[in-house]
């Protein structure tokens, strides 16, 4: 780990940016807000926080040229954490209130959680808001010190369907609806749940993320 790394939180103008700020600030890091691509501040790692309507978040990122900022940082293999809608925008497109293009870092779609089971019977309330467990689908050192009994906090109506299943690092089950709850690659961790709202389990993810910078 770098000595006191600088972490930039990308300001989507919709997120719970301060909650993420405080979770990161528990550790020995310096945290900065990135509100436009004109922010020439040098950063060692990037976080794109959650909360927000997919189309609106994309339009705000474009307006501030932050879409290109994120793409550029990822091309340089910067350690990056993406949360909730922050994870969803990494994909090709979303169907949240219409059809919207994402950053297309990963191929795949963002679709709505089905309210009904295969017989068309109501099976679950959408959005899903609450705590759930995650099932690890591959070895991922962002999940060090965590196990299948830990709870994480979710609040979402949409979920990602990656084309390349190898990037999926965990799945979760909402009343028999199994979906991708996180993805990871070398420098990227993206979670559908909110680690900053998941008590001690979530804070461990921030700790692991910072350790890898």
């Amino acid at each position, binding site marked *: 780990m770098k000595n006191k790394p600088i972490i930039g939180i990308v300001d989507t103008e*919709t997120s719970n940016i301060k909650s993420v700020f405080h979770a990161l600030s528990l550790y020995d890091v310096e945290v900065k807000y990135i509100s436009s691509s004109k922010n020439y501040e040098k950063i060692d790692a990037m976080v794109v926080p959650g909360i927000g309507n997919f189309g609106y978040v994309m339009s705000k990122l474009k307006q501030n040229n932050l879409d290109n900022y994120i793409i550029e940082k990822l091309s340089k293999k910067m350690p990056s954490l993406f949360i909730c809608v922050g994870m969803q925008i990494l994909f090709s497109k979303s169907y949240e209130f219409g059809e919207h293009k994402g950053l297309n870092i990963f191929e795949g779609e963002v679709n709505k959680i089905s309210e009904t089971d295969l017989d068309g019977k109501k099976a679950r309330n959408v959005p899903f808001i609450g705590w759930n467990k995650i099932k690890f689908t591959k070895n991922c050192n962002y999940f060090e010190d965590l196990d299948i009994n830990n709870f994480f906090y979710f609040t979402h109506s949409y979920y990602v369907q990656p084309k390349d299943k190898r990037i999926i690092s965990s799945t979760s089950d909402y009343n028999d609806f199994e979906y991708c709850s996180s993805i990871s690659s070398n420098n990227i961790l993206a979670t559908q749940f909110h680690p900053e*709202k*998941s008590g001690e389990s979530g804070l461990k993810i921030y700790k692991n993320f910072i350790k890898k910078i």
Partner: protein
Amino acid sequence: MYKRIISKLDIKNGILVKGISLEGVRNLGDPNYFSKKYYDDLIDEIHFHNIIASLYDSNIVFEIVQKNSKKVFVNVSVGGGIQNVEHADKLLRIGVDKIVVNSAAVKNPNFLKKLVDIYGSSTISVNIETAAIKGKQLVFVETGRVNTGKDLFDWIETVQSCNVGEIIVTDIFSEGKNKGFNIDLFQKVREKTDVQLVAHGGAGPKENIADLFKKCEVDAVSIASMFHYYYLEPTKPSNLKGSNYFLHNFNKNQKQGMSIIELKKFLKSSGINVRL
């Protein structure tokens, strides 16, 4: 699915207060003391409710939330007096994760659509206060003071058509009495509600809470007095304004209510999934 236990903290002049049927509030202490205790004891969410929606009080609530978010890492929602997008934006920027709207939605349901278009469904919650008057289940606003004349079930339909992700229904007559939730009411409300449903008003006997989850399939319960009176500490804060008679005369041996973990353990033993 795991059911959520939410603690509701009513704030007046920067102090945690509690009334009965949304009236006659009593000072209980520092809201940040309570929210940290609740977080340590595995509360699933915290809901701060600003009962006086003046500008002055909104600023005090901002301070409470800012202090809270440095130490409490669960979902925090704030309601009371949120009238515009700027107010919601400010809250999200200082440590809030969910916005609760009541009166402003009744005045203008399009406000809900606007919020959802920016923040998404799961960030916007609507609190509906209701009471039965002459056989009609009606909607109230301004902390139970104003009868809107709207039918509860029609209003739920309107709110859902704005794509709001969560509805909190406050049963005014049961609120603050610790006598139990009105099972009949929440059964009817559940039938009409496809999104997340939070029951509020009446939490008391633990058996009734288990019953509520089983018979009404609500997604969460919102609890105030039952936890406040358990975690209450005898304090004599000189800066507390208002009705302090209770706090001054409170004796720790009179401890009432129940801890969050005790309630969760009971629910789990009754076959209800909760985070423990």
